[in-house]
């Protein structure tokens, strides 16, 4: 298996175990070109290099030479063995070679941080997207249906808007649904603890609260909000979030696996929050495209976002799901207005 040492014999102190009884025999090993000679008190053994396994170097832990007959030697002194093995042409594997010098470890750490950063920034969204595409919409609906039921019945009360207004809003919603997709549903509710809010549940249910309807300057603003929520559904954000959270917690478990679950949960939570921001921007882009395609003004949507921020800024006690993940409302409003301007210039 290994090429024999070509240098003259090296001698190393070792402990010999025969593999049959838990007795350690102090021995001297002669590492020769032709093989290994074990010189013990009252016994001598000889082995070929061919059938001998050399354990990898692990810090300053003793190294093992394991022989074909089940016996092995434990060698506490690394230096003498290293010298003999170097001439023997022993080649360390990557995982063994890298930790042996601090310089390589620092390099590995730099590569590790780069790899984690790059995976997090580009790899994860891409992977989540690819996996999400493989999962049929029907399955996602099954995932979300009961959760949506529960949320609507537990957290929210029926809408207090007049019947006619509710019908109007339903029509408005249907005009925004892509390709007349039947899985979309608008649920109108009294916001209760969540106040002025809108959210997308997996499987196509969009919840809009009375308070948000009242806050909106006009129906175009509501169109903006609804298109934004439809964007979340279209881009499979809930599913993608579940997938990326799973991957992040798997990596966190790898890193903190030696300690406890206490530290493993933290990065996953952070990842969740930050992904939501990227997804909000994506949903905004979807809404902008959707409104532009229908020649609907974007400014009311921007105004409504500003009002929402003020509203939830004042009463921060509730659960502003719509806003808690939107700390960059100012930036979003700016993006929407910029899109509005781009829309207007060609027509002038």
């Amino acid at each position, binding site marked *: 298996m290994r090429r024999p040492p070509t240098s003259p014999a090296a001698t190393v102190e070792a402990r010999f175990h025969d593999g049959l009884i*838990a007795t350690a025999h102090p021995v001297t090993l002669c590492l020769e070109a032709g093989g290994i000679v074990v010189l013990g008190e009252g016994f001598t053994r000889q082995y070929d290099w061919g059938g001998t396994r050399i354990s990898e170097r692990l810090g*300053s*832990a003793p190294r093992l030479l394991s022989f074909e007959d089940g016996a092995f030697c434990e060698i506490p002194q690394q230096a003498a063995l290293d010298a003999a093995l170097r001439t023997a042409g022993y080649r360390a594997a990557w995982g063994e070679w890298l930790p042996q010098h601090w310089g390589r470890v620092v390099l*590995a750490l730099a590569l590790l941080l780069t790899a984690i950063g790059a995976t997090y920034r580009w790899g994860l969204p891409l992977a989540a997207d690819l996996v999400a595409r493989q999962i049929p919409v029907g399955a996602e609906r099954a*995932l979300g249906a009961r*959760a949506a039921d529960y949320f609507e019945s537990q957290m929210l009360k029926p809408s207090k808007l007049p019947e006619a207004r509710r019908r109007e809003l339903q029509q408005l919603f249907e005009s925004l649904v892509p390709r007349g997709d039947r899985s979309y549903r608008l649920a109108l509710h009294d916001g209760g603890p969540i106040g002025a809010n809108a959210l997308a549940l997996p499987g196509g249910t969009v919840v809009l609260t009375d308070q948000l309807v009242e806050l909106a300057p006009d129906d175009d603003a509501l169109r903006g909000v609804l298109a934004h929520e439809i964007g979340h559904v279209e881009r499979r954000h809930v599913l993608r979030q579940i997938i990326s959270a799973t991957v992040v917690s798997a990596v966190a478990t*790898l890193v903190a696996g030696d300690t406890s679950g206490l530290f493993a949960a933290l990065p996953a939570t952070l990842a969740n929050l930050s992904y939501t921001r990227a997804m909000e921007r994506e949903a905004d882009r979807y809404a902008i495209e959707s409104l532009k395609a229908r020649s609907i003004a974007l400014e009311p949507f921007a105004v409504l976002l500003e009002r929402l921020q003020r509203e939830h800024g004042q009463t921060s006690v509730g659960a502003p799901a719509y806003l808690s993940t939107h700390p960059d409302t100012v930036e979003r409003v700016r993006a929407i207005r910029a899109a509005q301007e781009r829309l207007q210039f060609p027509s002038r």
Partner: protein
Amino acid sequence: MTGDQAQAPHDAAATAPTARGARLVFTGTGAEYFRIWIVNLLLTIVTLGIYSAWAKVRKMQYFYRNTQLDGSGFDYHGRPVAILKGRILAVVLVGAYQIAMRTLGPLALVAIVGLIAGLPWLLTQSYRFRLHNSSYRGLRFRFHGPVSQAYLIFGLPMLAALVPGALAAAGGIGDPRHPDKRFFIIVAGLYLVLMILWPYLHFCLKRWQHGHAQFGQARARFDATAWDFYALYLVAGLMMLGIGVFGAILIALFAGASSIPGAFRGVPSGIFVSMLAFYCAAIAVGTLLSAWIQNMAWSSTRLESIAISSDLRGGRLIGITLTNVLLIVFSLGLLIPFAVIRSMKYRLESIKVLDADALATIGRAAEGGPVAATGEGAMDVLDLDFGL
């Protein structure tokens, strides 16, 4: 030399006061393990997790080979491919379970039943894999704890953790929209039973782990009783109660002074500090209890007639645990390897084998014995890292 397999001594003289004791010595260092850990992580992430099986073998070999008893090290023999298979299976199972649970339908019920039926078996296989791949002085350890006991030990806690969800998933009885008295009675009863039985289950776990282990041909015995566990839990419980009463008095005192400036976001700083202190005290008592249990469990374990002892000091372990938490938090996880090595070194080096000379006479288990027949076939199947 090959033919003289000595029987493990059975005579009382083997553990006479004149016997030469040997303490476990751990020679691993945080700096060395840090280097291995970083490289393992890098290669694992670069290979999308596949390398983790090889990384685990390297990590275990680093720990085992640096653990010395009477001048000789332990060794770990797990094969990376076997570990990889176990991990792939674990990922598939966890994924399937997550998906099933999210549907909240009948599929969730199937998943829960499957989990209760399957997990104790998996845990047994995993622990068996661990011991079968551990050796000292060339002799393998063995584990032949029956799966039936694993169902008792892990089944009840799992039942308690899963039944509320299962009832809710089954609909009707656990539906929060129509609170049902029966639901609360079942759940509360289950938790009460679990609380009362907890020390007994802990005893069963240790008896299962220690009492069914084997080193070479020498079988381990576990002599502790369930009452030993109840006594330790009782003392820890009383300490928690004392700390709770003391904490409540403190909070009441500070709450009375809440109008004093220096209030913290509306919450009196006194209450905030008391809560933090109470939390630290709870960690400390938990650590103390784990030290007592390690000492008692190891001191009640013998290998044939060779006694083992453990003399972990609770105060020292609390110090190590709390400073480890600080070390990890303030280094954002980068110093995890140092924390791991510190607590591993202290825990291992508290363990002592009281007759090192008798240990050296233990021979290899006969091939084809009952252990080999039950264990070998299954041992390659799984290593799931449950950290038993």
